[in-house]
């Protein structure tokens, strides 16, 4: 059962596969740093994030849409102007 929603809701963020793990930069200061992995013609980096949709909060994983055409749009912020 999913935990009751609270002030903070963890999500998996970027979901590493063996392929993307090897592309992460070497460990620096004990912390693994990420670099850009998205390239045209290459597999989309998978992720899971918390979301607002259809009146409620839920976590959305990109690969749940595998098998369909997907458009991912990043934008700078809610209530911005453009």
């Amino acid at each position, binding site marked *: 059962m999913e935990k009751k929603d609270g002030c903070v*809701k963890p*999500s998996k*963020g*970027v979901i590493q596969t063996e392929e*993307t793990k090897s592309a992460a930069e070497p460990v620096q200061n004990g912390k693994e740093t*990420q*670099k*850009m*992995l*998205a*390239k*045209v*013609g*290459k*597999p*989309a*980096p*998978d*992720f899971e*994030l*918390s*979301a*607002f*949709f259809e009146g409620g*909060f*839920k976590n*959305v994983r*990109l*690969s749940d*849409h*595998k*098998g*369909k*055409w*997907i*458009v*991912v*749009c*990043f*934008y*700078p*912020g*809610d*209530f*911005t102007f*453009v």
Partner: protein
Amino acid sequence: MGVEVVAISTDSRFSHKIWQEEELSKMVDGGVPFPLLSDAGGRVGTVYGVYDEDAGVDIRGRFIIDPDFNIRAMEVLTPEVGRNVSELIRQVKAFQHVVETGEVTPSGWQPGKPTLTPGPDLAGKVWKEWKPEMAFD
């Protein structure tokens, strides 16, 4: 077209809720019909190359992903300039067409305009099939 859309910013899901209910629903009846995702800390934006570390936000980037989960197209803009949704739709239709038919779509292609079929017979003969003015609407 059968396309799933997800929108992502670094805002919290609570901010997304209020934005949808207070503003977006006044632009689009019933609000936008896709989920608004919260990329706190820009973890996902970083691997997609759109996270601006100085500002702490994901800038305007959009990615077309095919049913095999490969990225087909990307466009990244600094925040001041909005997107061209017609061009996004045109690209999705073009990618869907080439996947279905094996044809290729020349510059300026729109649904209904001629496509090209690559092969030895076409090499050096594209000028017969395609004129520069066809690159424009």
